[in-house]
């Protein structure tokens, strides 16, 4: 077996080991890489910046703990930006394993910015069958959520007085790791014409660019890169920015493996032809 054939038959565990080392090195020796901001992320930032204190933004935290690495920094940065600007938040968590995680984030940032539940934000929590919930909230938030996550009736919350449905919120931002985003686009934007932006995992990002091009969503944050761009713009947190150096080294290693694999493939094919 010559060199190229060995290259083609390389045990995948060597690939895992090298990628692992490429990830560990920047963790132990942190360095920063430049983050370039794209228009689709800036559109979200600008829209939130244009809100006045007291305006309401609906933030849908629709992901499970396993997607935290990619999308949690987005939710954190947006929430921090809103609290810093005194923009009020209505928050839902329509992914079944996410409500506890979302509550943890809300209480942590609520304490940091001295924001009170029912006055500065309203956490609705979880209700099953997200499509029906999204449609129901379009009529009245009280249909799927008569009470907030803590069991307090929405009518008794000061910030919810006079707030009926999506007509009373300026923007809807959905941070998601699953197909709930489709339902926000189809039902939220399609049925109720909400001004919608999304933050999704890397795997999902390519699927949602057509909706950006068609104007059905006005902004898109894709994976950790999108999160890091948002952190650069909002100056709220730097976890995603720090992780971009790890991405860079790992991507370089993967590109080298792809190049080496292709060289091995073409050289062994050439040899067979001879």
């Amino acid at each position: 077996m010559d060199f190229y054939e060995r290259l083609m038959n390389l045990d995948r565990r060597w690939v895992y080991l090298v990628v692992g080392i490429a990830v560990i090195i920047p963790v132990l020796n942190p360095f920063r890489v430049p983050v370039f901001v794209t228009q689709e992320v800036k559109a979200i930032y600008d829209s939130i910046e244009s809100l006045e204190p007291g305006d309401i933004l609906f933030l849908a935290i629709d992901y499970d703990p396993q997607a935290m690495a990619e999308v949690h920094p987005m939710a954190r940065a947006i929430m921090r930006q809103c609290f810093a600007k005194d923009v009020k938040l209505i928050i839902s968590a329509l992914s079944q394993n996410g409500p506890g995680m979302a509550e943890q984030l809300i209480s942590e940032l609520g304490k940091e910015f001295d924001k009170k539940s029912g006055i500065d934000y309203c956490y609705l929590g979880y209700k099953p069958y997200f499509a029906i919930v999204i449609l129901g909230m379009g009529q009245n938030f009280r249909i799927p959520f008569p009470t907030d996550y803590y069991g307090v009736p929405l009518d008794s919350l000061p910030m919810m007085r006079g707030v009926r449905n999506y007509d009373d919120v300026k923007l809807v931002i959905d941070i998601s790791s699953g197909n709930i985003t489709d339902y926000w686009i189809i039902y939220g934007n399609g049925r109720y014409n909400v001004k919608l932006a999304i933050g999704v995992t890397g795997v999902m990002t390519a699927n949602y660019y057509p909706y950006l091009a068609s104007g059905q969503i006005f902004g898109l944050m894709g994976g950790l890169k999108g999160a890091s761009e948002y952190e650069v713009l909002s100056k709220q947190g730097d976890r995603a920015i720090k992780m971009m150096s790890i991405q860079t080294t790992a991507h370089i290693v993967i590109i080298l493996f792809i190049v080496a694999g292709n060289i091995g493939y073409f050289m062994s094919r050439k040899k067979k032809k001879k």
Partner: protein
Amino acid sequence: MDLGTIIWNTVALFLTFCIFSFLYKDNPFYKFAEHLVVGVSAGYFAIILYFNGFIPKVWEPVTKRGEWWYILPAILGIMTWTRFSKKWSFISRFSIAFYMGIAVGVAIPLEMQQRVIKQLHATMLPVHFMNIQGLWNLLIVLGVLCGLVYFFFSVEHKGAVGGAARLGIWILMIGFGAGFGLTVMGRISLLADRIQFMREWYLMLAQFVSGG
């Protein structure tokens, strides 16, 4: 830093190593962690569903507010469970038909509007060669047409049709490449997060041991 946090984070670290051990080969540690995740997720979901679905949507309306009609959808739900019996499984069809009827009625007009008509509208763009935007529009229109031609099998892919189909497959490949690149980014993010977690665990432990 309290001892409880250290212990729970150490359990999380152990489970992370259990899952990573699969990279070498399948083993009982990996299986243990995998089954634990499935079990905990199912248990957590069942409880969440009970307290956010059954209690506020069935139990409280019926028992506290006397709104007895809420029991009707609950009966439809119970009917779906008859699928486990060969003799009575036909009963489940009524509730499934009811659900399907509503879901299809709600979904079809909006799905058509959002996924087909608005997307089609977004490809009807002014094409010209006078500026960059016109050229980008041309690329979108060509990409959509050639991609569709590739999936048009009623005509043999020869001549002009073959050329368009070939361009179509190139465009599809570029799309798949972008998807693959973003997938790699996503997977590396998850790995990087776990490595960061290990580092934070080590710093936390060092701080605890040094009494900080």
